[in-house]
């Protein structure tokens, strides 16, 4: 029995589009767009993960920038913190023998021994899993506004910790983060000469992530998540471990956020506290909402488009205001997401001056 083949088709089409786009940009001499596109692609990894949590499991998180920052900052610290003074410790020697460190020189020629990026990245993601688990257990007992507030609180804590800790560079963040060698010649770096390769690495990661989520949505677990969204107590009474599933979805979406954070940090060669800010979390929620909530493709398209426009500076100094505005419009007219018929009829009704009856 074959399943999901139709669901894979858009992924294949997108892959072709990605290639065409790169060729078009190259031939039209606009290759400088690749940088912002690559960054948008990484942000979109977080967005599609959040889409599963919000749209399918029906749980909101206003703290996902916190998980993104957790991934980014941990990998940044581990790959830049100079361990040379501790190199003689037995533990360090063992880890060194296992190839967990790399040696390089910073801009001033100082010798540095730090954790090899691949291990730093893996550790950052594992750490985020544990953190999401510990936060998720108490917080996911809450619903609606209370859950929103609690996750917001988490986001604020991460932001203030990042901003107030010298190890995390306080307001300056962390720079000089080295490239991340994945396998062979593949490496995540902001190096101009590797821009095209990095464009494809980012897309590859996003497409794999989307593929996993499409599979998940169409699986037994995906069905259970939709049931939880629709009628949690009934799903629970039918034998669905609702709190367990919510927790695992929360962790999964946190992993997507952390992976995005790790990759983007190595791509940018650094990370700053604005990545952990609450406005970033609000932005992600707004993008998932305008993408249609339970719509991975909608979230993906909006994630790419809006992040790209934002990174190109099209929103000027109103950057955050744009996303705040999006949220207001969505919540007023289409709390279930805009890519539905009622949204347009509601707008049309408003245009014609009819009275709105919500309920």
């Amino acid at each position, binding site marked *: *029995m*074959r*399943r*999901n083949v139709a669901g894979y088709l858009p992924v294949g089409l997108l892959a072709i589009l990605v290639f065409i786009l790169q060729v078009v940009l190259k031939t039209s001499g606009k290759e400088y767009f690749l940088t912002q596109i690559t960054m948008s692609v990484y942000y979109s990894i977080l967005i599609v993960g959040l889409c599963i949590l919000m749209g399918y499991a029906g749980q909101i998180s206003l703290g996902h920038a916190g998980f993104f920052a957790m991934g980014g900052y941990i990998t940044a610290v581990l790959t830049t913190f100079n361990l040379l003074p501790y190199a003689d410790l037995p533990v360090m020697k063992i880890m060194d023998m296992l190839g967990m460190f790399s040696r390089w020189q910073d801009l001033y020629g100082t010798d540095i021994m730090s954790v090899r990026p691949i291990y730093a990245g893996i550790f950052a993601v594992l750490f985020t899993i544990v953190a999401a688990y510990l936060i998720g257990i108490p917080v996911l007992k809450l619903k609606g506004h209370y859950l929103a507030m609690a996750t917001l609180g988490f986001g604020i804590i991460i932001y203030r910790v990042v901003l107030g800790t010298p190890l995390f560079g306080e307001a300056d963040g962390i720079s000089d983060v080295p490239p991340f060698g994945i396998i062979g010649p593949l490496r995540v770096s902001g190096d101009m000469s590797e821009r095209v390769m990095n464009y494809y690495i980012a897309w590859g990661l996003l497409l794999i992530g989307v593929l*996993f*989520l499409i*599979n*998940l949505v*169409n*699986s*037994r*677990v*995906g*069905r*259970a998540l*939709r*049931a939880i969204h*629709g*009628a949690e*107590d*009934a*799903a*629970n*009474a*039918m*034998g*669905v*471990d*609702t*709190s367990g599933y919510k927790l*695992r979805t929360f962790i*999964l979406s946190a992993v997507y956020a952390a992976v995005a954070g790790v990759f983007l940090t190595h791509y940018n060669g650094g990370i700053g506290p604005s990545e952990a800010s609450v406005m970033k979390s609000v932005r992600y929620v707004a993008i998932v909402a305008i993408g249609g909530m339970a719509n991975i493709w909608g979230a993906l398209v909006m994630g790419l488009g809006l992040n790209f426009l934002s990174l190109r500076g099209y929103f000027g100094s109103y950057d955050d205001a744009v996303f705040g505005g999006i949220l207001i419009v969505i919540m007023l007219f289409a709390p279930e997401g805009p890519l539905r018929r009622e949204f347009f009829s509601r707008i049309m009704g408003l245009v014609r001056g009819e009275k709105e009856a919500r309920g």
Partner: protein
Amino acid sequence: MILQVEDLNRSFGGVQAVKDVSFTVREGMIKAVIGPNGAGKTTLFNLISGTLRPDSGKVMLEDREITGLPPHRIAGMGIARTFQHIRLFPGMTVLENVMIGCHIHGKAGFLAGMLNLPWTWKEERRLMERACEVLGFLSLDDYMYNDALSLPYGQQRILEIARALAVGPRLLLLDEPAAGLNMRETVQMAEIIRKIKEQGITVLLVEHDMSLVMNISDEVLVLSYGEKIADDLPLRVQKDPEVIRVYLGEEDAQD
């Protein structure tokens, strides 16, 4: 005894919704729970199915204590339920609703689902066949691919039962399955409940329709203000002076 309830208590603020209730249900019977509105019938079901935790008391399924276990564990042990206020999954088809009932008969988790492992396809097909069987049993198979909430009200009630049957329960709790049904549909519902009993499934049933209750139940438990006031054969309960007083009293009040 498939179910044993001992001294169950539960209050909400100042309201003692269930008070020292004890009773047993024998395997294979249909037992009805009746009582005026607010008597604590739904609360009793919530306590048995794990939706609510009791303040004190014990619930035993066969010889295993299930008091205070979470609902999904209790479902896994063989108790399924329907809801007085229909709680179908919106935006999902009739088939998908019933497949949620089949959930505990599969094991594909997050990783298997994300990787779309081949063994999960077989499992999905097995769950689907199981759901189709139940839908066929309750003659809902024609609507399989319709949105569950697009069904007429009476069919939604039956779908609630289908979803619960898909769990594969040994004890089925039905909370007012005939509420809102017309006379013809109520007769149909009685037929369905009898058919379920013939499958060897024990039924505990909350119902207001007296003719339905007296027709199909083997025993009747009467609650009033959270307390058990009778627990006997239908004919004897009908003649019980206390029961008559509670019901007549209620009717007097309504007149």
